[in-house]
């Protein structure tokens, strides 16, 4: 609070003393007639003081109304911010909060990664199965080779049977037919073996290239999943960081709002100078009235032509007024504006 206002306010009682008026009766006639000339100006001075008082009050009301708007907006901002921060602090179950959004986003990304990982796992299982099938094909191939060896053995056996049938002459003729038939069947069996062997070869080649593809895909998937995990982690960290910053900023705004309310409170306290100033002006007006009445009683109502020039009262410049009030100018002409 302004100390000068306080000290002024402590003297709000009327400064006019009745002895001042009664002392007039002892003045010389020249002084009396001089005083009588100024008598009509008292009412004008009173009116000016009333206007000044009213202007000050209106200005204070305007300022107060502005404060009302500022405070209202500040309060709304603080309430909204507090509401957001309050909701945000309650946990992430509320999807409207930033924390909730981050949590949801994180949850969704984790699910996507899990699905990708599951797909990778299935692919790995498929690789294993194809490997097992390849092993089975290898076993089949070995069995076919075994059959081929048996067929070759059968053929040699049939050839020997033919030789023996030829030696037996007429008695071995039937046996030679059987041997020929065995050779023929063995040829067919070898053809089938060769076909199966070819098919197994193709199957194994196909399985091998599929395995290569799947292995390459697996490695690439693994790398992509790792990369995605890394990027998601980084994004989530960034989002959490941004959220932290935003929260800090909003908390700061709330604090600023509280400070603004305090500043407005201090300004309201300061503005009350007007109440005391108006009271003081009212006392001065009252004193002027008393003085005017007493002078009128002493000298009678002045004639219209008796009034002294009013210019005598208003010839003070702002600089002179500041000098009278003891206010020094920091710089000559400071704050003055001249437009042409």
């Amino acid at each position, binding site marked *: 609070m302004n100390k000068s206002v306080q000290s002024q306010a402590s003297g*709000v009682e009327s400064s006019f003393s009745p002895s001042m008026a009664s002392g007039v009766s002892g003045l010389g006639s020249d002084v009396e007639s001089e005083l009588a000339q100024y008598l009509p100006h008292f009412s004008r001075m009173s009116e000016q003081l009333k206007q000044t008082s009213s202007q000050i*009050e209106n200005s*204070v009301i305007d300022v107060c109304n502005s404060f009302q708007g500022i405070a209202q907006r500040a309060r709304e901002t603080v309430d909204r911010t507090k509401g957001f921060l309050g909701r945000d602090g309650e946990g992430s179950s509320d999807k409207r909060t930033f924390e909730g959004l981050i949590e949801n986003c994180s949850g969704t990304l984790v699910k996507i990664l899990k699905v990708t990982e599951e797909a990778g796992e299935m692919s790995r299982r498929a690789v294993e199965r194809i490997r097992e099938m390849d092993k089975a094909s290898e076993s089949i191939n070995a069995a076919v080779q075994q059959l081929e060896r048996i067929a070759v053995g059968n053929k040699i056996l049939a050839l020997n049977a033919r030789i023996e049938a030829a030696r037996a002459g007429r008695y071995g003729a039937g046996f030679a037919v059987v041997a020929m038939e065995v050779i023929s069947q063995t040829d067919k069996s070898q053809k089938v073996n060769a076909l199966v062997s070819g098919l197994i070869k193709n199957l194994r080649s196909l399985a091998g290239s599929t395995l290569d593809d799947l292995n390459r895909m697996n490695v690439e998937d693994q790398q992509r999943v790792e990369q995605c995990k890394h990027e998601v982690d980084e994004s989530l960290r960034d989002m959490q960081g941004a959220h932290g910053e935003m929260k800090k900023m909003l908390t700061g705004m709330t604090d600023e709002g509280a400070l603004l309310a305090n500043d407005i*409170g201090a300004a*309201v*306290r300061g*503005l009350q100078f007007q*109440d*005391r100033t108006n009271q003081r002006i009212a006392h001065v007006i009252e004193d002027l009235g008393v003085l005017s009445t007493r002078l009128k009683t002493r000298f009678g109502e002045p004639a219209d032509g008796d009034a002294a020039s009013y210019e005598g009262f208003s010839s003070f410049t702002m600089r002179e007024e500041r000098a009278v009030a003891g206010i020094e100018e920091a710089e000559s002409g400071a704050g003055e504006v001249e437009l042409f």
Partner: protein
Amino acid sequence: MRKVLIVDDAVSMRQMVGFTLRQGGYDVVEAEHGQDALNKLQSTTVDLVLTDLNMPVMDGITLIQNLRRIPAMKSKPILMLTTEGLAAKKEQGKAAGATGWIVKPFDPEKLLQTLAKVLP
């Protein structure tokens, strides 16, 4: 919401007090002198009265005396808010039934603290 009746002949003071109280979460009714306050209280009830001392038509002390005769206002807090700080005047206020005396210029925060203290 608690309702406070502000009685002061200065519009600016009513504005400043009203502004402070609204910031503090109070509902506000205004009257420009004691008689105006009594008239307003015929159609509305309040939880607290905050009145100036020197006012035209009816001053603060007379207002308090009148208020204490109204059954609904017998136990309600009534605070004086005035530039007057003389002990004799304060005694007058106390005798009339004032709950407290606040000397202007008021500190907005202190004013709100005082209201919170005197309101049941």
